[in-house]
């Protein structure tokens, strides 16, 4: 009974908790939050609960644990989809904030939990909502978690493919073994020749998964601008975002020049190719 009495509970307000700072909380791993963090945690929590997807994705939970039983991440991380769902359904700003620090990034987004849940909760979906909020508000731990993905993000934002063969560098992927990049060193053939040996012309590049036309990448960037993705990314990494804007501006210029070069041919066509201005 005395142990239970000292366990952290969720009935106090954030300010009360911070003021009392019960030793039991710190012993159980509860982190202390700065005033700025507390304020951000409250904002995120309010937005989380107001998101229309919350009502749609979080339907109820008996704590049966079916979701966690089938969860790949639960086998290797301090992570449980059941816990994430409980936080989504019954948590407060502090528990949500704690989850944002690390746990939400353990999820594999395999949807096994969704498939096993008798209540029909969209657990993978509600974790994505938590992640979105964390990115949008530039939560520091999220910045660190996503720091290695600058190259993938650049590719996805500018040409819409997330992988290129030149990303698979042998030094970084040593655990993948000597054949990870598509050739044996003894073959003495460059990566460019290995790509040329693929019998599909648009795949014969090392810089993206396939060659993407300029119009297509400009249309994609228009989507990112119109849907707030660019602003979202700006909150996470302003430098990267400015670099992306520069890259796209160059591609717009390239597109305008190409319109002049190919004017005669384009005038015979209609549809997006003729109306899209970049």
């Amino acid at each position, binding site marked *: 009974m005395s142990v239970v009495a000292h366990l952290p509970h969720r009935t106090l307000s954030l300010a009360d908790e911070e003021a009392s700072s019960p030793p039991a909380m710190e012993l159980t791993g509860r982190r202390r939050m700065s005033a700025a963090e507390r304020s951000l945690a409250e904002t995120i929590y309010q937005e989380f609960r107001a998101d229309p997807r919350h009502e749609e994705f979080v*339907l*109820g939970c008996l704590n049966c644990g079916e979701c966690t039983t*089938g969860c*790949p991440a639960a*086998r*290797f991380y301090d992570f449980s989809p059941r816990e994430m769902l409980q936080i989504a359904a019954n948590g407060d700003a502090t528990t949500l904030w704690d989850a944002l620090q690390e746990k939400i*990034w353990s999820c*594999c*987004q*395999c949807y096994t939990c969704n*498939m096993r*849940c008798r*209540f*029909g909760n969209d657990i993978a979906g509600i974790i*994505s909502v938590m992640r*979105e909020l964390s*990115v949008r508000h530039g939560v520091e731990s999220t910045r660190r978690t*996503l720091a290695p993905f600058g190259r*993938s993000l650049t590719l996805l934002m500018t040409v*819409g*493919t*997330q*992988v290129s*063969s030149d990303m*698979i560098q042998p030094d970084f992927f040593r*655990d*993948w073994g000597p*054949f*990870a990049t*598509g050739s044996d060193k003894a*073959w003495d053939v460059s990566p460019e*020749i290995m*790509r*040329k*040996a*693929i*019998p*599909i*012309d648009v795949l014969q590049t090392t810089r993206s*998964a*396939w*060659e*993407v*036309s300029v119009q*297509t990448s400009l*249309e994609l960037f*228009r*989507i990112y601008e*119109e*849907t*707030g*993705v660019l602003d979202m*990314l700006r909150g996470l990494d302003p430098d990267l975002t400015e670099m992306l804007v520069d890259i796209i501006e160059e591609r717009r210029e390239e597109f305008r020049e*190409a319109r002049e070069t190919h004017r005669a041919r*384009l005038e015979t066509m*209609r549809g*997006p*190719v003729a*109306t*899209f201005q970049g």
Partner: protein
Amino acid sequence: MLSASEIRKVMEERTQHQKGTGKKVVDVREEMERLEEKGELLIHRIRPENRPVPMQTLFGWTKRIPTDRLWHHKSCGQCGNIPGYPSALLWIMNETGRTYLNEPHQTSCTAWNYHGTATSNPVALAAVAARNFHRAYETDHFPLIHCGTSFGDYKEMRKLLVENADVRHKVRAILRKMGRDLVLPEEIVHYSEWVQAMAPEIVARKKFDLGPVVATVHEPCHYYKMIPEDAIYDDRVYGGQRPAVPTGILLALGARVADYSTWYDCCGFGFRHILSEREFSRSFANLRKIRPMVEEAHADVAITSDTGCVTTLDKSQWIGKAHGQAYMLPVLADVQLAALAMGAHPYKIVQVHWHAAPVDRLLEKMGIDGAAAKAEFLEYLQALKSGRAPELLHTPHEEIEQYFAINKGQVLPEEGTGASPPTTEPPAGVGRALP
């Protein structure tokens, strides 16, 4: 793990619970028809020239799989580091006389951005899906989705666009700014469904026997765990209790498909994990997937039908040597194995050299002379080094297509002015046999 019967029950219960009104699971295609009548969207319909083959989905609904005149929605992971995956598919289409367009005017679904790093949102994902759908529509080729995640994402986005008027209106407004409109395909079709629909024609062209080969199947999560009602099932495959793909083509080709205890587990890809937390991906792949496949099922090959699964199961094995787990079980996509059985060149077409686990023993079991094929390929590489033009599966694209998604003129022609310039050459991106 849940069988198809259990999944149906869960889905019915959850739908009732979501609405609290005893509502039944609904077929999104019916609502699409109503929205088209109201002028809110267009349906990209499967037509006779698409030569559809009927299949059954989870609830017994008919899903027509188009087999001809297809628009390749490529996968970034496949094209980036498993290029034999798309080339095997295009090769089979050429061999079976199917037409297609393979263009540079396509983005990926960008769902990696969402499921991996959360740097997107549903409206953006839906707009990207709709942009690619419209591009396929204006070329009058039906979209065929290569990637399992893209397939799952596009099923979700189609449902979202149908059920959520706000998202639909926002997406339509964005599309109109780029001269496009909201078009949803009658069916979201995964390439493995095409392979299943083409099984009789593939088997008819079989040159190598799969009889001695024991295959284990990894069922890609995003094929059947996202929008489960849209996966195809067949009573002849696991009694209809697991998805029909990719197992169906293996059975049709005569392989011995062996079961293992963790068939339902994910591969360990995890999106960001495969790049930045590979200790998780490789541990999960080796311990939960590859080890049971080898020790329980004594597999000669692991077959799957999604980008991340081939990557994770294949590339994670080499490091297993450090723990005395040198399984090195070959991992291929269904379509790669089918192409090999049909006599495709293991290196030039199936590009097996991009796989970390060697396939030599598998080729030997199938009766394919892998050593001779490798020698021929090495010679070909040297010829490429010397400046020889590469062999291609389809006509190359024009220079103008580096910039513009030129209208092929099939659906939106400039009436009376000739949208497509007259030409005697087949359009770029249309399949042809290798010399």
